[in-house]
């Protein structure tokens, strides 16, 4: 009995040791491969006025997504571990401090921290400043959030990409929504922050209205300082000049202050208020948000995101981690990282499984398209460097049972309806009456 047991023991010991050796060698091979990581620098606002509304939600989205990627738990076709098997290492940088500082920080990311790609930038000024620098350094850069059309309309790039639509579609869609819902507009007032974002939004809306509502008159044109926070005077001015529609591209703390100050004074009852980028204040404001406000999210995001398995997965991932549903900023981050993931994997398939360099990444991302929780993203403009996507506009209503603001009357606008074609600048396209616009509701 003992000898038999012994032989069994020896045999099983051998088996175990062989298994262990095999396992170890597989691990070693795997770990040699996995030791190489893909370093990505993520730049967004961690402090300052854009932190709460755009920067921190986006960074939170990135964190939870990178974790999911590294575990390989994303749904297909995103289910490879990390990027093509390489673990993702993310370095977070604060975008606050001005464009000069951002140029320096980006150089540090590429040269000192040796990142393989940078994904970042909410501020249009920052985007405009860093894009030529990445191009000169021949390093791969994805702009994930900034709105100005000027990046690819005024310049040509090989290494710089933007994985979200630019701001043209926000106000075009907003005006089209009014038209499609047959809302009468004889006059409209505007209040926008006095800097590039506010001024561009105001212009896009005004030009679009000229085309869609030729008889409508532009009334008050308020341009409060960015960060003013006190809008009593502006609200009085807006209320003293009656208008059917009041348009605003206000965002963040300014938008919230405006809503809190204007609502008790009855502005929202006297005029139809439309916000081009207002979805991000809905979770916080809750029942303080007036009903019936027409707003956009700069894309089919948040409560207006299309139903899909990918979106459901993303929604749960983010909500479980942060106790709030994802609004526009984290959506833009996720679509950017998804596009990056596919580009890396496509480039690796083309170059034999090595970590791709900037040229290979650029070649892979150029003209590509992929599915995101917000719909299909297509790199169709700017020589294949600028994305277009669909968008949606909805109307607010506070749902007392769910204890949150929901969006009703959601209308979707396909990408080709609200984005300029590849060969036209936004301003020219709107002023020419949207030639080539397809599929508009």
């Amino acid at each position, binding site marked *: 009995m003992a000898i038999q047991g012994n032989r069994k023991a020896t045999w099983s010991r051998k088996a175990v040791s062989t298994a262990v050796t095999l396992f170890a060698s597989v691990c070693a091979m795997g770990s040699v491969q996995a030791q190489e990581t893909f370093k990505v620098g993520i730049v967004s606002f*961690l*402090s300052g006025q854009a932190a709460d509304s755009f920067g921190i939600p986006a960074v939170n989205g990135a964190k939870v997504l990178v974790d999911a990627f590294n575990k390989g738990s994303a749904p297909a076709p995103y289910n490879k571990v990390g990027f093509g098997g390489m673990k993702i290492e993310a370095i*977070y*940088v*604060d975008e*606050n*401090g*001005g*464009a*000069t*500082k951002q*140029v*320096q*920080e980006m*150089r*540090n990311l*590429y*040269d*000192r*921290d040796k990142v393989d790609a940078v994904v970042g930038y909410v501020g*249009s*000024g920052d985007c*405009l*400043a860093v894009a*030529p*620098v990445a191009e*000169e*350094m*021949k390093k791969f850069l994805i702009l994930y959030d900034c709105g*100005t059309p*000027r990046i690819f309309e005024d*310049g040509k790039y090989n290494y710089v990409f933007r994985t979200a639509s630019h701001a043209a579609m926000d106000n075009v869609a907003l005006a089209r929504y009014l038209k499609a819902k047959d809302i009468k507009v004889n006059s409209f007032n505007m209040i926008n922050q*006095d*800097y*590039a*974002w506010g*001024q561009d939004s105001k212009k896009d809306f005004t030009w679009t209205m000229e085309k869609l509502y030729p008889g409508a008159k532009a009334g008050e044109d308020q341009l409060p300082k*960015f960060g003013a926070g006190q809008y009593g005077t502006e609200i009085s001015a807006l209320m003293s000049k009656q208008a059917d529609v009041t348009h605003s591209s206000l965002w963040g703390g300014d938008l919230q202050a405006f809503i809190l100050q204007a609502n008790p004074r009855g502005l929202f009852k006297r005029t139809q208020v439309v916000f081009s980028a207002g979805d991000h204040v809905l979770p916080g404001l809750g029942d303080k948000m007036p009903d019936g406000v027409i707003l956009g999210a700069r894309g089919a995001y948040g409560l207006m995101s299309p139903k899909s398995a990918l979106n459901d997965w993303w929604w749960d991932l983010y909500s479980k981690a942060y106790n709030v549903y994802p609004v526009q900023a984290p959506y833009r981050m996720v679509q950017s990282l998804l596009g990056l993931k596919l580009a890396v994997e496509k480039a690796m398939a083309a170059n034999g499984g090595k970590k791709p360099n900037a040229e290979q990444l650029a070649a892979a991302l150029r003209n590509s398209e992929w599915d995101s929780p917000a719909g299909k993203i297509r790199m169709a403009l700017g020589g294949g460097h600028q994305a277009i996507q669909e968008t949606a506009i909805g109307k607010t209503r506070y749902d007392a049972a769910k204890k949150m603001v929901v969006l009703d009357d959601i209308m979707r606008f396909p990408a080709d309806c609200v984005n300029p074609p590849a060969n036209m600048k936004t301003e020219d396209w709107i002023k020419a009456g949207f030639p080539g616009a397809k599929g508009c509701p």
Partner: protein
Amino acid sequence: MANQLGTTVSSIATPVRYTVMWALGICIALSLAGMVMPKWLTFLITMAAANGLVSLGIMVLMRGGVVPFGQGMVFAIGGYAAALLSNKLGIKDALLLTLCGGVIAALIAAPFAPLLSRYRGIFFAMLTLALSMVTYGLLMKLEVLGGSDGFNMGRPTLFGQKLPDESVGYIMYVLTISVSTLMALLARIYFDSTRGLITVAAKENELRVEYLGGSVRQAMAINFILAAFCGGLGGSLAVMALGHIEPNFSFWTTSGEFVFVAILAGWQSVIALFVASTVLEVVRSFSSSYFPNTWQMSLGIFLLIVIRFLPRGIGSLWVKGGGK
């Protein structure tokens, strides 16, 4: 008094040779070091040197006892001038653009000089701050200048040669270091000259200087214009290195940082200025890396430690007592 001053000047004139040699040596050493430095470091030092030039202008004024809190204005003017000349008028030569930036900034600041020379202390600081914020407001409003986004500047050329991608950073580095060294040298000579000494005397006691025949107001006005020239030089070098200009150049926080560098350096040693500027850039850069969520706090703590423990600035570390 003239005789006294004359002897003082001539007794200082001999070391000018040494100062020039020192300056040349440092310039060459830094240029050589730049060849082996990582690119992010050359860029950092380029920006530090450009910013240091603006602080040099502040030092010129601080020796007279006034602290300008609005040098962002001349920094922005120099930068916008260089960028506009390059983009709109096709002037591409880097040296020419630098010079133009300085001259245009000085010209635009000149009408304000007689006005500002009447003020001292906090009012001088506040008036310069107000002027720089008015400039900021104007720049934000003017959409032809890009409004709040600013605009990008094309790459400059040097002596007619195009600058290739790989070495443009290094060439800008050498250019900036050279201009800074030259200006530092000129500043040193100016500080030791008659007018420079009058400035220092005015800081001590203006009434006595006036009584002895010097014109304090004239000294202050000229100092202001010189400071504007330095600021403009810094601005155009900065915009060429960055490739982008925006109204933030004229914001009060930018001006505040230039003042901080000048105070960190102390008013005695010109070299300390560029050292201080580099230190600030390094601290800013690393606190951003290590404390992405609290870099403002780390920067603030650093500022406080310096102001507290180095009351006479970095310069006091190697310049003893009443030395110059």
